[in-house]
């Protein structure tokens, strides 16, 4: 969520129990601004917090780059996520430690998983920082969502914010197909012409949540009697998306442990 609206937005997602203490809020308010100045970001988002065992990571996001922090004041730049990182860290499980220099031993992991034999050959120790980057990237790709119509695709290709977005109506807001994954569409191309017939190419250029697998991987709730829609991802518990119907206000934040809920199919 945007740094400017952070305190207000945090209140909206507090229904899930997550939140930031007053101290952190106050610290973020100042440090995000400085962050924006120092890195020349046009805008800075507060992405969320990943709770480690020894301490949390606070993560802010500028344009195309992530920064992490342990105390909300001094930020350090994270390397951009690469495919290699993601495959490297795919086998890591368990909680984050809260120490970016902590090193995971892939060999140890290999013992648990037979698939990752090649790492036995002397795969380097994986730093937690790498895992952090990969996890953030995964979360963004898997469950970073926007309401339908908030972004439009121009005929020439570029996507930009829709100035005319006035928010979803209350009835739309209750439906999963009013929300889109904010990443490159994957399923859209696979849909039949008949399914595509009703789509508006300038708006419906992303995958909607409706077809997420497994079905029901989102909990969609109207809070405050319908004046607030909250979507919680069950696949990545901790990710909360909020939207106030009929307004432009929406955003998501991750406050969790950075672990994917792989038990989801059994839990529905």
């Amino acid at each position: 969520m945007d740094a400017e609206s952070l305190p207000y937005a945090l209140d909206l997602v507090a229904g899930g129990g997550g939140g930031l203490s007053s101290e952190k809020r106050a610290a973020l308010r100042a440090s995000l601004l400085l962050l924006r100045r120092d890195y020349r970001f046009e805008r800075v988002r507060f992405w969320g917090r990943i709770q480690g065992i020894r301490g949390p990571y606070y993560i802010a996001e500028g344009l195309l780059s992530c920064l992490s922090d342990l105390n909300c004041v001094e930020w350090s730049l994270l390397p951009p996520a690469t495919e290699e990182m993601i495959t490297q860290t795919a086998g890591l499980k368990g909680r984050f430690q809260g120490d970016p220099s902590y090193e995971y031993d892939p060999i140890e992991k290999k013992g648990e998983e037979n698939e990752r034999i090649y790492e036995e050959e002397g795969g380097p120790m994986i730093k937690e920082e790498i895992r952090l980057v990969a996890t953030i990237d995964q979360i963004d790709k898997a469950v970073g969502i926007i309401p339908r119509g908030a972004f439009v695709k121009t005929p020439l290709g570029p996507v930009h914010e829709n100035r005319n977005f006035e928010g979803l109506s209350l009835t739309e807001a209750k439906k999963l197909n009013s929300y889109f994954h904010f990443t490159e569409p994957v399923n859209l191309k696979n849909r039949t012409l008949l399914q595509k017939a009703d789509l508006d190419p300038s708006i419906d250029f992303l995958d909607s949540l409706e077809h997420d697998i497994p079905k029901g991987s989102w909990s969609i709730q109207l809070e405050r009697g319908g004046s607030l829609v909250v979507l919680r991802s069950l696949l990545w518990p901790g990710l909360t998306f909020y939207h106030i119907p009929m307004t432009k206000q929406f955003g998501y934040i991750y406050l969790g442990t950075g672990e994917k809920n792989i038990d989801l199919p059994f839990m529905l």
Partner: protein
Amino acid sequence: MADPSGEPPPEAQASPPSGQSSEQLDLGPGQESPPVQGPYQPTLPGQGTPPAQGPYQPTLPGQGTPPAQGPYQPTLPGQGPYQPIQPGQAPPPGQGPYQPSQRGQFPYEPYEPRQAPYQPHQPGHDTTPGQAPYQPHQPGQSAYEAHQVGQGPYQPLSQDPRQSIYQPHAPGQEPYQPQDPRRSIYQPHAPGQDPYQPQEPRGSLYQQQEPMLGPYQPFVPGHGPYQPHDPGYGLYQPGYSPYEDEIPDPEPRALAIQNAKAYLMKSSTKSGLNLYDHLAQMLTKILDERPINAVDIIENISKDVKWAQFQKKMDTLHDEHEMLPTFELAEKYKALFLKGTGEGGDQEPEEEITDSPLPNVMETAFYFEQAGVGLSMDENYHIFLALKQLVSMQPIQTCRFWGKILGLEMNYIVAEVEYREGEEEEETEEEEVIEEGGKEGSEDKDEEEDEEKEDEPPKSTYKSPPVVPKEENRTGTNKFIYFVCNEPGKPWLKLPPVTPVQIVAARKIKKFFTGRLDAPIVSYPPFPGNEANYLRAQIARISAGTQISPLGFYQFGEEEGDEEEEGGAGRDTYEENPDFETISVMELVDSLSNWVHHVQNILMQGRCSWINPSQKSEEEEEEGEEEEKAEEPDEPQPEVGPPLLTPLSEDAEIQNIPPWTSQLSTNLVPQYAIAVLQSNLWPGAYSYAVGKKFDNIYLGWGHKYSPDNYTPSMPPPVQTEYPSGPEITEMNDPTVEEEQALKAAQEEALAAAEEMDEMEEEEDEDEDD
């Protein structure tokens, strides 16, 4: 081409216009003046009508009516020729569209004034009053035409010189000179007007020529009926220039403009709006509001303007009042607030007596907020009021906000209460009876039905393991009673007491809550009960795992010794230690041994205190004694869990993950920091402690953390249907060889037997002997 054709008409026409002018003067004040002034006024000074009129009026009177037309005259002479034509072609389209534009659309006014003058000309043609004032103008116009001819479409650029030319004419009309400043204002408009004026007259000429089938005819077909092409011309005026060589007269463009305008003014069949008005309104709005980067937000402005159109809804029929869920909730919240004041009087005496059980939710929330957990303040307060409501409706000894469990559709807000002595028994017992009766009844029915149906087949020898009896109220897992509601303000629902079977089953499954208490739990292994039971079981497990307090805050009661003897698992009651010495926050954070569990551990059996199920079942059911006796040898060893008030440091690790994470709420102001503990085993469980204050809260999905994937237990192996033995196994038929071999063997055996007999007999005989 235009010159010869153009010039003579002005001169010839000059006279009629002058004649018109006289009449126009008459008409001017009568008919035209209002529309004419209307449009001008806004354009000139800045849309202010009074000031705009101000300048004009002086000119008009100063010059007398003829001079008043002076400024118009350039148009007039040109128009002279048109007038006859206009009635034929343009009036319907031209006048029609103009009128609406005249009303209040400033940018377009420049056009309007001209039309206005035209109209008067038409009627005025016949008259022939004083032409004198106009004659000087006519030459001026001839000059224009010359320019026009030469410059063609570029006239707009050349208009300034023309105006300079006009002005000299104007000096001829002395009254204009004082107006020069005003003219300067006019000029921007004038240039817009000027090009049109010459064009229009030519259009009129053109039309005149049409009937005459002069040299323009070839163009005429090209323009066809004008209307279809004209809008195109109008739009492409700059691009139109190339045609000028072919069409020396820009007159068709005048038509094109008119037609384009007519097109623009076509009102939509859907909304009744037309683009012309819409654009006018947009530009007006932009000029009024002067937004930054207007070009970027022109779409929005367009939208806004359109929306503004629809705001007026003068319908006498009202829509049915919409009942949003927001209102319903607000109603409930309001009820909460009303009760606080309404029934306060009744409650006060009780509170004095019983030392109100209502917890200070807001204080707790304040501390948890420092820890970075907790709900929003609004929600906390609503919960606070809801708890107050609960306390006032139930005979409650102690009450606590236990936490919130998230569900797929709705969430549960959980309150942990303890009834006052004696009061809970009736209610709970009744409920239990009902519930258990219902369950047992249904089970019995099933069994009976089964028995009836399955008379013939052999009875199953399976005997379910003896049911572990439920713990009494106020003990063990049923120590507290839990109320839940989905939303503060909604009615509180009491959860049924938990049974050991449910706890054991709940350990084996991992399901999301839906938010509906009566929802079935579809799982394997099957869960006995519905979501209410599952919720209650999870609450019991979470409580046992995460309810902690600083060491020494609670102590065992005096009769602890007796209890220890009675229950193997240890003492299950504690009391507050009046001599509790606060543990410093730093110590609380540093060492987990300064924290203790104050809720009993739940044994594998699903109870806090171990009980031998088979013993009890023997007493209850004497029928099965024999079989149970057989089982007695492997009677389970009594389970012993960690006793109550065990330090957290004894908690088991979760695969190298410490079960608790402790930290200070703030490092900046350590003297006011509080100690925060966060359970890693039950994500979402938090505790804080500072001084003598501490509390626990759970905000989460209600699931235990496990580093490994959840794997549902495998179904048990298929049971054998009947004991297989030799008597029921079918044997292979012996082959002939086998039979023969058997026979041979039998014979041999017989023979041998006989021999043996003989031998034996002999032996016997020998023995006898």
